[in-house]
């Protein structure tokens, strides 16, 4: 028998802890758990934007799986997320390594490298829409000046260049800047001795990078790239909606799921169908979440 007094003490401690957790508990139930359940429920109705709805079973899902627009969008979502993760990670490592190379003015360089991350994405999107314009875009103008020929590449609408442009623009999102700073500090944590040992072997810079740097920061790379996936899923709307519109021009090549959800809910007023799409997006996010947990075990991240 546990003494009564002891029991009381534990109970009190637990209650205190729960009292502290109360805001999260309410928030989780009201703004996360309930919406998730509600989303599944709404996805089984033909709810319209005006609130009228009736139960239709799984017909939203049936319609969705037959819709080429949906399959295209699903494909684009995964493609966009994975490629964005890859290019932003590589770019962040490049910037971090440049900044970690001890030279004068590194503080100023960091300002320039990081500032695009904290300015509004929508401003950047509009800036790039005009930089990559066809007849009056900055880039075509610069190319014309350099080459001496009149250049009018249709950057944003040419199927060959649109992804080039979109992924270039993702280099300017918050995610990249964040990763760059994280890489800066983790690169600094790589023990000097390892590099010195390489020097003694007469290894070149590239070899040092592949043999020491990459393995040493690989846990961070993994973690960052997967969290990058999540911010790509989440941030794609704010970036692409002002850039290519709800139809993901040209030819739906940039229509990620979040754009399609917005379009179905607000342009076509099909909230029930948009909920079914949201369920899919939610499941994709869960999938990435599971991947994060799988990776995090290796990185000794949650050392409870």
């Amino acid at each position, binding site marked *: 028998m546990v003494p009564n007094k002891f029991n009381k003490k534990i109970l009190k*401690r637990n209650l205190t*802890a729960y009292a502290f957790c109360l805001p999260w508990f309410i928030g989780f139930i009201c703004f996360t758990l309930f919406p998730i359940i509600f989303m599944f429920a709404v996805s089984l109705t033909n709810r319209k934007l005006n609130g009228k709805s009736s139960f239709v079973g799984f017909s939203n899902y049936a319609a969705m799986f037959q819709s080429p627009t949906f399959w295209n969008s699903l494909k684009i979502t995964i493609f966009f997320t994975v490629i964005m993760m890859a290019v932003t990670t590589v770019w962040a490592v490049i910037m971090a390594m440049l900044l970690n190379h001890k030279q004068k003015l590194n503080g100023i360089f960091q300002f320039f*490298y990081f500032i695009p991350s904290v*300015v509004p994405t929508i401003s950047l999107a509009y800036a790039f829409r*005009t930089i990559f314009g066809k007849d009056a875009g900055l880039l075509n103008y610069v190319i014309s000046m350099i080459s001496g020929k009149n250049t009018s590449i249709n950057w944003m609408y040419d199927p060959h260049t649109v992804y080039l442009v979109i992924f270039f623009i993702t280099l300017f999102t918050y995610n990249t800047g964040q990763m760059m700073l994280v890489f*800066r500090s983790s690169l600094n944590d790589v023990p000097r001795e390892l590099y010195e040992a390489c020097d003694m072997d007469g290894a070149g810079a590239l070899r040092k990078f592949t043999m020491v740097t990459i393995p040493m920061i690989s846990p961070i790379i993994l973690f960052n790239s997967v969290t990058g996936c999540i911010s790509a899923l989440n941030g794609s709307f704010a970036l692409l909606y002002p850039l290519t519109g709800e139809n993901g021009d040209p030819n739906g090549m940039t229509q990620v799921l979040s754009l399609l959800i*917005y379009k179905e809910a607000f342009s076509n007023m099909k909230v029930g169908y948009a909920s079914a799409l949201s369920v899919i997006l*939610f499941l994709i996010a869960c999938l990435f979440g599971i991947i994060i947990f799988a990776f995090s075990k290796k990185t000794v991240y949650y050392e409870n």
Partner: protein
Amino acid sequence: MRTLKGKKRSAEILIFILKILVAFIMFCPIIWVFSGSFKDLAEFTTSPGIIPKKPTLENFSYIFNNSNYFIYIKNTVLLMVLTTFGTLISSSLVAYPLARMNFWGKNVIFAIIVGTMMIPNIALIIPQYIMFGKMGWLDSLLPMIVPAFFAYPYNVFLFRQFFRSIPKELDEAATIDGCNKAGVFFNVLVPISKPVFVTIGMLSCVFWWNELTQPVFYINSDKWRTLTIALMTTFMYTSGNAFVINWPSIMAASTLMIIPPMVLYLFGSKFLVGGIKTSGLK
């Protein structure tokens, strides 16, 4: 020996040039926005040069005279301040027992918090939209402000990571002095954690200053538009023709929006950069 030194120096120069090049690429869009805000529409859509041919302040006066610019600023600042205030209080409270106490279900709660961090907001926005509609909160800032008072998982996570790094002896000393758990939190942890409050506060401010997605879904009328929404609505089109985008006015409004985060970085880079650096690590 000399050639090796010479090689090293040229490598240094090369790296420096590379740095300048990257800086130029990263800053280019911002320069473009600044320069565009001083052009008129005809120049903007015909001659793309960085230096405006006949600089004009028309775009700025257009913004101030033809829109409720100060209402947009008021809304944005209100949103920014209240969400930040809310999330600092609630998230730090929740993070405390997770970092410093043992209680039943702690690991489950923490796992759920980390799990919900992974759910992109956009996946739940449709059900939340319907829910807030039922509560009569649409077309106001409430759908964004109220959840902030109930702890954002990401911020809870950041606070927890920081609290764990503070030596436990401090708590014990305070407990011996007669403080209970709440006393320890307010008298010991909060004063010592000022830097992390500043950091998370700054990150939150930057986020809400730039946030587009949620206002796009929740805001309808002019009186609750934030600056980001105004950018894609009020400043977007020229009067009369819905197909001609008023780029210079967008650029001028963007310029005004870009400057505050830049200033914040200049004065608070210690907190901002330091905070982000640790956010991805343990």
